[in-house]
Each structure stands twice: as structure tokens, then as C-alpha cells.
């Protein structure tokens, strides 16, 4: 999977035609063979752009940054990234007409060690679902695979599960990097940063980390697209996907196989009503 040349050509043409002000893509790191996101405003820098199986970061995160606000943006999205983009579009965070989207029919990306990422192995929507131009051969939607860690988690009782999570959150340093690197966390002031919400209140005690991460994951339930930006940002390497994948499975099972952002105009599981929604909690 190497679309570097195509992306460079498209970006150059977009700049030449005056269709975009900013292009968000990937470039090589200066020190190893990994890649970092790059925000280009100068057409001369287009030659730096690359796209291979090392293009990991979900670039839709940059749509909330100062550099892209109210600008015309060219953007590269993989399958998962395009799902978060779909949600950002329905949630009115970006305007479709301001974007030029290069969709990728993704074959999966690899981590720093060259191993295929777990979310790519279990990927359901490899092709970009929203795009102006598609690179690669679309493979279509795959069957839902339950995450291996979640199967393991399902064997645990409630108390055991709580203990398990508490033990994971012990290493949380409350830097909130997970939240800031999440493309779908765009609230002007997050509820866990509110001065009045005294149980979260910034202090890094394990109870406040537990509350903050739980609240965060529930806010993303039915919206998380499993791009794993949060895990990439976590300095303590916490397996944050456990929270999101667990939510995803519950929602998939209970809300008519809902997967966030796959369809255009998707509002997330909790934001739409269907007669088929479970109601067995009503006595």
C-alpha cells in the first residue's frame, strides 16, 4: 500500500487550482521510518507527502485545530478515519463543501514494530466511506469480529471486571492526551474539566482517573470508530481500546448492529430513536 505519488499529485493540483488552503497528510519522520502528520499551507511542501502502511494517525483530529477552522482543507482518510469524519459532518463540526477528501481503500496499518495493528486485523470498514476521490480497490464491509480482549473480559464477573479496570487506571497520569488526540472530542470545555464537577477535578488520584476515563468512554459510546489515536497518545500505554470495544460490542448487540459513522448522516447510537431499540428495562 503506497499512494504517496498519487496523493502528492492530487494535493499539488488542488493547490494549483486554488481549491484548498491547507492540506493535511503524512510525512516521513526525520529520524526513522515512521510517519507523522503534517499540515501543509505552502504548495512547495507537497513533495514531502507520503502514504504507506505506516500512516497511522487519524487526521480528522486536525479538523478541530486553529489551522483548519473555516479553511478549505484537503485531507487523507482511511476507513476508520472516514467514519469519524462522517460523525463530525453530521455533528456540524465541519462543512462538507470545505473539504476535499482523498479516501483510501485501506489494507491495514502497522505499529512502530511493523506489526499489523489489532484494530486493522479486526477492521470491519477498511474502505473510506466518505470521499471525493478513492485510491486503491475497495473491499467492501467485512463481518463484525468481536475483539479478542473483550472475549476475555466477558468471562469476568462485575466485581472482577471493576478491579481489572481499576488496576489498569492506576497507571493513568491524567494528562488527558487520550481525549485531546481523539477526533471526536471537540467540546469547547470537556465535562471532566469543569471546575464544578468536583469528582473529576483534575487531580490525579486513581478514583478521579477512573471517573474521568469512564465518563469519557461513555461519551464516546456509539461514536468511537476504533482509530486508536487515544492509545497512540497515552504515555502510559494503557489499553484504552478495552473501554471502547466493550461499549461497541454492547451497542452492536443491542442497537441493530450499529457501527458508528459507517453510513452518511449517522448520528451515533444514542442520538437516534428506533422502535427496535431494547426496552426490556421498562418493568
Amino acid at each position: 500500500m503506497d499512494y504517496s505519488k498519487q496523493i502528492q499529485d492530487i494535493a499539488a493540483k488542488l493547490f494549483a487550482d486554488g481549491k484548498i488552503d491547507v492540506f493535511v497528510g503524512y510525512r516521513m519522520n526525520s529520524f526513522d521510518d515512521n510517519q507523522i502528520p503534517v499540515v501543509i499551507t505552502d504548495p512547495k511542501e507537497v513533495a514531502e507527502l507520503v502514504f504507506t502502511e505506516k500512516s497511522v494517525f487519524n487526521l480528522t483530529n486536525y479538523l478541530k485545530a486553529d489551522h483548519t477552522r473555516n479553511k478549505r482543507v484537503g485531507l487523507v482518510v482511511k476507513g476508520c478515519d472516514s467514519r469519524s469524519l462522517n460523525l463530525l459532518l453530521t455533528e456540524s463540526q465541519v462543512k462538507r463543501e470545505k473539504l476535499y477528501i482523498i479516501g483510501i481503500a485501506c489494507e491495514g496499518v502497522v505499529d512502530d514494530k511493523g506489526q499489523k495493528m489489532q484494530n486493522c486485523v479486526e477492521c470491519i470498514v477498511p474502505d473510506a466511506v466518505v470521499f471525493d476521490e478513492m485510491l486503491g480497490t475497495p473491499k467492501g464491509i467485512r463481518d463484525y469480529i468481536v475483539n479478542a480482549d473483550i472475549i476475555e473480559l466477558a468471562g469476568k464477573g462485575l466485581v472482577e471486571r471493576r478491579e481489572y479496570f481499576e488496576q489498569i487506571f492506576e497507571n493513568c497520569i491524567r494528562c488527558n492526551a487520550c481525549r485531546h488526540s481523539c477526533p471526536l472530542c471537540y467540546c469547547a470545555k470537556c465535562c471532566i474539566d469543569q471546575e464544578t464537577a468536583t469528582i473529576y477535578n483534575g487531580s490525579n488520584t486513581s478514583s478521579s482517573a477512573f471517573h474521568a476515563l469512564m465518563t469519557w468512554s461513555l461519551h464516546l459510546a456509539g461514536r468511537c470508530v476504533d482509530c486508536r489515536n487515544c492509545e497512540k497518545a497515552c504515555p502510559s500505554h494503557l489499553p484504552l481500546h478495552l473501554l471502547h470495544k466493550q461499549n461497541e460490542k454492547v451497542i452492536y448487540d443491542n442497537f441493530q448492529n450499529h457501527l458508528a459513522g459507517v453510513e452518511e448522516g449517522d448520528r451515533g447510537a444514542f442520538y437516534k430513536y428506533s422502535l427496535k431499540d431494547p426496552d426490556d428495562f421498562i418493568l
Partner: protein
Amino acid sequence: MSFSTFVTDKTGLQKLYEAIISKHETYAPVEKFGKYDYKKVSSLKECDPDSPIAMTMSVKPLFFPRASKIMKYEANSSGTTIMETDEDPLAGKRVVLGVKHCDARGLQVLDAVNKWDYIDSDFLKRRANTVIFSTRCDKADTHCFCTSLDYDLEKLDALDVAVVNGSDGKIYLQARTGKGDIFLKENSDQSTMYDVQNTMDDVRSTKYEEDMKKQYIAFTGSFRLKMDYKDVNEKMAKRFDSPAFEEASRNCVSCNTCAFICPTCHCFKISDEKIKDTGVRYKSYDSCNNVYFTLEAGGHNPRPAKFRRWRQRSMHKFVYYKERFGVNLCVGCGHCAISCPVNISIFDVVNHVANSPASS
């Protein structure tokens, strides 16, 4: 004043570590999810004093905790009382194993801000009661640039005992402070550790300085990143208005993790946790990359844009702290670049700015 140096080998060092752990309150890097964090240990098996630098969190939280209680209070009909919190868990006599040299230097740099004017006696007490064992790295990691900064790794006295790997499996234990000297003498095992001054063994005694120098030269030769900190200090001071800050910070996602894992960042916030009539006030980490950091209640924010916050961060590290306290607020550990989701290194940022055209 010169302090004692001992020579031993791998087994000798392990025996020493085990003896320390059994006799003293000991902290060392403990692995979890591939990342090492300093925790209290009860056996050498739990921890790895030789943990890889890139995967080891800073030792700073043992002295400046991520969250520490300031006070508890209780308010009821008979009035309010402010209570002392529980005893400081970090104030006792203790030993920390496996600290990296750069990390230890970070503590020394923090002494300056905690000692000026109002004295943070809690921080200084934690410092005074701790003996730091620090192993000199054999090889630099991708993002390391400690040798390019304003301290001498060979003589660094931010640590109490330096552990240096010599040739042929020899390991040198060198006391760098009076505290380290006494501790080392008290805890040395005469069957496995030999004072280089006392031993008659020619190979062991006379060549140790040369052997340590050899290790140092090999280590300094392994750096990918090099810079002239004086040049950077000087140039940065003239580049407050440089557009280079904007260029260098463009792909930053403002996740703040760089400040939270930095061994020298010391900005904090004070927050209350309240449950009905009682509450606890905490001092916990904060980051100048956070947009709320300088947001005033009236709505005015002197640093609303990302590049302004980056300017504050990098200027604080290489200009302001230096002007104020005479040392750089960066120790070249590279942790910011390692933890950054988009691999921005303070090294790249300051060099980019320093090499940009000077503003008027």
C-alpha cells in the same frame, strides 16, 4: 573532596540491590503495559533498574507527586476546620534505584525553583531523604540529547551513586555526594565489592578512571542529536516574534502529555474535591499547552493560540528559566518526543526557532 568508588560485577551489583531492597524503603522502575514507572518494591524481581530509557517514566513524581493533598477541611454548623492531611508518604528515608542521569539532573534543576524566595520544604525534605542510584546509559536513544546541555554527565552530582558499566563485566559504583558516600560505605558487601583505593589488585584499582572514561566516550559517540545549547539560548532570546514557533507547532494536537511526563516541567494547579461538607484540596500537574492554563475568569486569555503556548513552553525551557535561575529547564531526555503522538521533540522546535531569521 573526592568520594569513594567501588568495583564489582553483575552479581555483586544484584546482591547490593537486593540488600538495599531488603533493608531500606526502595523505589525502582516497575513494568506495566511496556512502560516503566517508579514504584515501591519489595524484591529485585519486581523491578528492572536497567529499564530502557525510552520506556521509563520520569522519577519526578516521587518528589513532586502527580497529585498531592494540600489539606482536608470540614465545614459544619459549628464552623470550619482545616486539617493536616495524612503523613507525607514520600518524606521518609528511602532509596531510588535505576534513575537515569538526565532524570536526576531534572530534580537538581527543580531545586532552583523550589528554593527561591518561598521555600518548598516538602520538596526539599523528599530530596534530602532520598539516595539516588543512577546507571549511566551505555547508548543514547533516538531522542536523547543530554550531552548537548549545560551539565557534565561525568561529574553530575544530582545523583548520589553513579553506576557505570566498565569493560570485561566490571561495574563501578561511584559516590558523587557525601550522602551517597556514606550510604555506599554502609551498604557495601566486602565479599563482592572492592574499594578501588584499598584493593591491591592492580587491574581493579589503577585503571578504573580510564575504564570509566572509555565507557563515557563510547556513550557520547552514540548520539544522533547534537546541539550547542549556548547558541540556542542566545538565539532563542531574540526570537520572541519569530513565525518559526507557528511552523514548528503546526501539527501539535495540544494533548499536553509532553508536560506531564517531562522531568522538569513543574507547573501545577490547585483544585478542590468536595463531598457534601468535607473536601480535599489537591495540588496536581498542569500544562502550559492547555488552553485553560492562562484563561482568566473575565474571559481574557493572553495565550489563546497554540503557537503562543508553544512559545511559552520552549522559551521557558531555554530562555526564561535560564535568565532567572541560571540553568536550562530541559535535560535532553527526549521523553516529550517519545510520548508525543506525533513525535514533536523540544529539540526540533528550539533548533527550528533558533535557526530561523531573528526578529527585530
